[in-house]
């Protein structure tokens, strides 16, 4: 199987005001195969968005990197050096978190398509317009009424559809969606998720879907990686992971989701995720884990094969290589 995205010991941090590095991603080994929908689930500060930015090549200027990241075999991050020239828009494309800020407010949608297509393929305005029509229709928008509009003239759901159309128009094979629905109302959330599923069938994409919403992930994903405090806690087939979580953190996530129509007592786990930059001796989940023992405090567990193709970073599972 071809690996679309692969990382080895990927570490990403941000320089703070005192020029210290706060590590947001602490050594992540990802393997995303071609054609699958790979969900990365985690709470805020887990580093999931940073991974998304790294793959799509838009880490902010004060980011620091270590380790390696490959996209279709191209080395894009190698230690401090990053090179995305042939990657951005050509191999990887991106759906922004909030459609309101992800689209250029000063250009009409048509112009935005033009700039993307001109940069990637040297299209003329006319060609770009034809292409734009195609992709807007795919995303469920009426090209005639949207092409000459500015983003602020569209509703939130339409903006996100437009962003998706723009992302697809690049023709890239890997789509990174960074919480594409978190700013939308519930019923739109579902529409957008369904749209992504449909498009992925039509265009044959590899999708990396970043979300904090397990329910949504359960709807769209093939495989899932659960992140906690900058490290992967658990990786596996989405159904298996959610039905039988192995890592205590995953099971906590499942436990605390309020679900409609199921009135169960929400289990209360004390504590909060550590902030980026806190020490990483031992297991990051140690403070909150109900099953912790002495080894957990001393040594950080590494992601290792637990059963089938499930990978867990937890000492409960022996942590065999």
């Amino acid at each position, binding site marked *: 199987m071809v690996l679309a995205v692969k990382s080895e010991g990927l570490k990403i941090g941000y320089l703070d005001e005192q020029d210290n590095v706060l590590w947001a991603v602490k050594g992540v080994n990802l393997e995303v195969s071609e054609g699958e929908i790979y969900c990365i689930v985690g709470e805020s500060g887990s580093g999931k968005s940073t991974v998304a930015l790294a793959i799509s*090549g*838009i880490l902010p*200027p004060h980011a620091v990197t270590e380790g390696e990241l490959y996209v279709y075999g191209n080395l894009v991050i190698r230690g401090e050096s990053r090179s995305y020239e042939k990657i*951005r828009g050509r191999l990887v494309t991106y759906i922004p978190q909030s459609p309101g800020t992800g689209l250029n407010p000063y250009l009409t949608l048509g112009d935005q398509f033009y700039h993307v297509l001109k940069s990637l393929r040297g299209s003329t305005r006319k060609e770009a317009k034809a292409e734009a029509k195609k992709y807007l229709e795919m995303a469920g928008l009426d090209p005639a009424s949207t092409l000459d509009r500015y983003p602020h003239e569209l509703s939130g759901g339409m903006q996100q559809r437009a962003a998706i159309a723009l992302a697809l128009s690049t023709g890239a094979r890997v789509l990174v969606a960074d919480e594409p629905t978190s700013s939308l109302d519930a019923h739109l959330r579902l529409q957008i998720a369904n749209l992504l599923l449909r498009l992925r069938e039509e265009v044959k994409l590899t999708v990396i879907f970043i979300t904090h919403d397990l329910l949504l992930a359960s709807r769209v994903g093939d495989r899932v990686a659960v992140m906690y405090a900058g490290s992967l806690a658990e990786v596996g087939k989405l159904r298996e992971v959610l039905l039988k979580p192995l890592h205590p953190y995953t099971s906590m996530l499942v436990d605390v989701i309020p679900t409609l129509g199921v009135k169960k007592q929400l289990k209360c786990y004390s504590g909060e995720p*550590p*902030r980026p930059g*806190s020490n990483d001796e031992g297991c990051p989940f140690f403070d909150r884990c109900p099953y912790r023992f002495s080894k957990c405090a001393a040594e950080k567990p590494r992601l290792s094969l637990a059963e089938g193709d499930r990978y867990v970073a937890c000492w409960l599972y022996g942590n065999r290589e």
Partner: protein
Amino acid sequence: MMNKGHRSNLGGLGELARRAWSRSLRFRAGVVIVVVMVAVAILGPFIAPYPSDGWGAVPPKAAERAGKPPGPEFLLGTDHLGRDVLSRILVGAWLALAQSLAVISIGLALGLLLGICAAYYRQAIEATINYIAEVFLALPAVILALALRMVLGQGIHVVIGSLLLTWWPWYARVAYVYARSIAEMEYITLAKLAGVPGRRILVRHIAANVLPPVLVQAITDVGSVLLEAAAINFLGLGLPPDAPDWGIIVQNGFKYVISMPWISLFPGLFILLTALGFSMLGDSLREELDPKMRRRWRLWF
């Protein structure tokens, strides 16, 4: 989980200055310039090589050395009357600082008070203060100085008066804009709902948050005020023509600019340097206030 050291409260200017000092070369340069200038302003008359307004001990003799270029005897040369330019600059330093600092401090206090009141009380108070500020903002200081000069005659009151009238509305505006954005914060609503007295909301909630950015702005502006004061004096609208103000010295030298360029050159440099010092201070402090303005930056595309 608490970590106290993570990001301390954006407290006072002291904390800000400490951070800027440790990180910004420009801030340190600014501090050095400002400290030196303040020292010169205080000690000027005592360290000037030729006291008594550059004449030296025996004024009549001075006339014989008119128009000497810079050299070991007169470091920055002498003017057309034989006065030592360096001595005049040193003696006049306090004037430059006194004019600009007086304007900034009074203008800042007035502007803050009115700007915050306008933002908090709204309605008629807001409209009135904004209108008055707008009218005075429409008048450049030099033009106001012209009016005051014609009505009241020459003197330092023209400089300070005209600058004050044009600078307070600027602070009122800046404070108003900040205060408006803060007045929309939820914590103001919470305090109002809880029945916290209005004055306490004004002071503890609004003013406390408006103050740091406006103060930083004021430090930057000392330079601008200095420049404007110099321009007013240069045009002969402010201080009398024999005062050792830097702007006036430049004006005196202007008539001899071809034959004795040093008379105008050096006081102008001092104006530039002092204004630059304050701007550097304010500029680097502002950069500290804005977390986005990080130092290192690599282009990511």
